[in-house]
């Protein structure tokens, strides 16, 4: 993990850090930069929208609309941490949404488990392709994306799924999920908090620290005796299982299973993860900064909608964000 002392930056390339952040760890510095970006984005959003952005209704809206993205970014971060990238997130959302709706005949919980198992299976295949065959992750997951979309369409016959396979309508427990709350906390937010805590526990465990190790230097980690292959496959499985939970949330939000969902999710999640300061070459980043990164993307989306920028331009802006943030972060000292 990147907790090295910053007392004296010995590398000639790394600039002398500003007095404000001297003495902080890399992770803390990243958190400071992401928070600064977030602050700027909030101010810009408030000004550009003439104050509409800051209205409580809109703020709740931003969070509610992006719960799926929050969950998925955590999954993407876990893969990115191992120096991989997961382009199949959108397809896994599509697959898990149709599996969930399709198997609601068995009850909500079994359907959820089937959807998550389906997602985990995709993650297993991704991980094995990356570890055993040593395919670059973007090739393996790009291929998986196509296959998984096809399987999702095969499952529904191509159309969206508005009822379970047995023909039963989607129960209220699912369609009303987004409208219910406990102690003013909406259910979907609770799911996000649960996923966040689980991921935090995972990454703070010894396994998590090993993931940082194999992400920053795979060879060194292997020489140190870490089972890098197993850990990496595990990371893909965990990530895709989390993605599937996001897919079930998506199905609950729109009240159907969509075999074509999530076209832009790879771009969205990678933009969020990279703006959150995670290194796309692995081994660096924190889950908290990733969540702030999602917040930045979510606010940008919301503001663009509020001020009437065409939604078709949004992929372009996210593409730009990915390149710019990776470029800027590539210049930071390590």
């Amino acid at each position, binding site marked *: 993990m990147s907790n090295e002392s910053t007392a004296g930056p010995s590398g000639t390339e790394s600039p002398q850090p500003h007095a404000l952040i001297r003495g902080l760890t890399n992770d803390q510095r990243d958190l400071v930069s992401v928070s600064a970006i977030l602050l700027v984005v909030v101010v810009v959003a408030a000004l550009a929208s003439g104050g509409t952005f800051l209205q409580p209704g809109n703020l709740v809206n931003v969070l509610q609309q992006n719960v799926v993205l929050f969950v998925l970014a955590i999954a993407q971060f876990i893969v990115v941490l191992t120096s991989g990238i997961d382009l199949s997130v959108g397809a896994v959302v599509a697959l898990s949404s149709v599996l969930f709706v399709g198997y609601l005949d068995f009850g909500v919980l079994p359907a959820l488990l089937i959807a998550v198992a389906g997602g985990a299976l995709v993650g297993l295949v991704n991980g094995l392709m990356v570890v055993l065959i040593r395919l670059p992750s973007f090739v393996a997951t790009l291929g998986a994306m196509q296959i998984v979309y096809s399987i999702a369409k*095969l499952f529904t016959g191509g159309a969206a799924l508005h009822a379970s396979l047995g023909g039963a309508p989607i129960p209220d427990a699912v369609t009303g999920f987004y409208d219910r709350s406990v102690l003013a906390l909406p259910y979907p937010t609770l799911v996000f908090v649960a996923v966040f805590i689980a991921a935090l526990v995972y990454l703070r465990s010894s396994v998590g620290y090993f993931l940082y190790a194999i992400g920053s230097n795979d060879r060194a980690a292997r020489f140190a005796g870490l089972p890098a292959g197993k850990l990496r496959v595990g990371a893909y499985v965990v990530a895709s299982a989390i993605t599937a939970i996001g897919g079930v949330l998506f199905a609950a939000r729109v009240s159907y299973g969509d075999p074509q969902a999530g076209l832009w999710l790879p771009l969205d999640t990678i933009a969020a993860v990279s703006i959150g300061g995670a290194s796309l070459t692995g081994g660096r980043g924190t889950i908290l900064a990733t969540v702030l990164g999602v917040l930045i993307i979510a606010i940008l989306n919301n503001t663009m909608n509020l001020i009437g920028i065409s939604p078709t331009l949004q992929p372009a802006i996210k*593409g730009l964000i990915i390149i710019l943030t990776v470029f800027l972060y590539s210049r930071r000292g390590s």
Partner: protein
Amino acid sequence: MSAATHDLVATGSTGWRRIDVLARNGQIVVLVLLAALGGLFEPGFFSRLNLSAIGYQYSVIGLIALGQFAVILTRGIDLSQGSLIAISSMVSALTVPSLGLPGSIAATLAASTALGLVNGAVVAWTAVPAFVATLGMMGIARGIALTLTNGNPVPMTDAGFHHIAWGRVYDLPVPFLLFVVAGIVIALFLSRWPLGRHLYAVGGHEENARLSGISVSRVKLSAYALSGLLSGIAGLIVTSRMSTGHPLSGMNYELESIAAVIVGGASLFGGTGRVSAVIAGVLILGVANSVINLSGLSPYLQGALKGSIILVAVALSQIGLRSGRGRG
């Protein structure tokens, strides 16, 4: 990884090397076997209609595979090809009323080459990895293509444009000829032209290439520009075929171009590969695809099968390449 180029054209042939040719052209053997099987089990396989369909679809893939090959040679990757096809499609349909046919083609190719150059500039001059730079461009180009008309397709109004995809010269479809010509030009470029040979050098060992006086950034810029240019030509063919400029065209084509290059025996880690084998790789995918199409399976099952074949083929090539390198 050795920087040696495995280019038969360039190295010439000695007597014993001919025996080796069959082994080193495994792709062509696979291709012939696959086509024979196709003809045996699917009566429609060798029909004129089917061959034309393969010829059209895989000329498009083939053109971008040649560009992808140049980029992969430098140890890069271009994930933006499908989006560049889309933007080319939109630019050609939108500019044809005002610029006419030649002007519109020029504008299209200029636009796609310029975006390829942007990819190259980011990869050559910054520390941004190639897959990040071109993933970003995937979003940027697709977003612009969609925004130009708010996501709506644009009818292609010029009648002459029709010939790019549908025309025939000596009974050969124009797209196929474009693919063949591009293949020959790029084979000569890679084997005879210093800049072309430098692509191998940069991919084989970038630091060595730089120390031998090669301008690494110039080499990378040209590889990505070439990929952009070829994506532009592919975009023209797609537009002509549909008589429509469509912002969603070319979706996921980069996967097939990457697969064709890898099936053609190039390494994703750069520095090795031959144009002839890449062309064979394109045709292998085309034939496999056609057999699946003729099989009458559900189109969604076909999609899953095609994706699996691509991944298995890429996986086998990667494994074969590794073991081959171990022996050599």
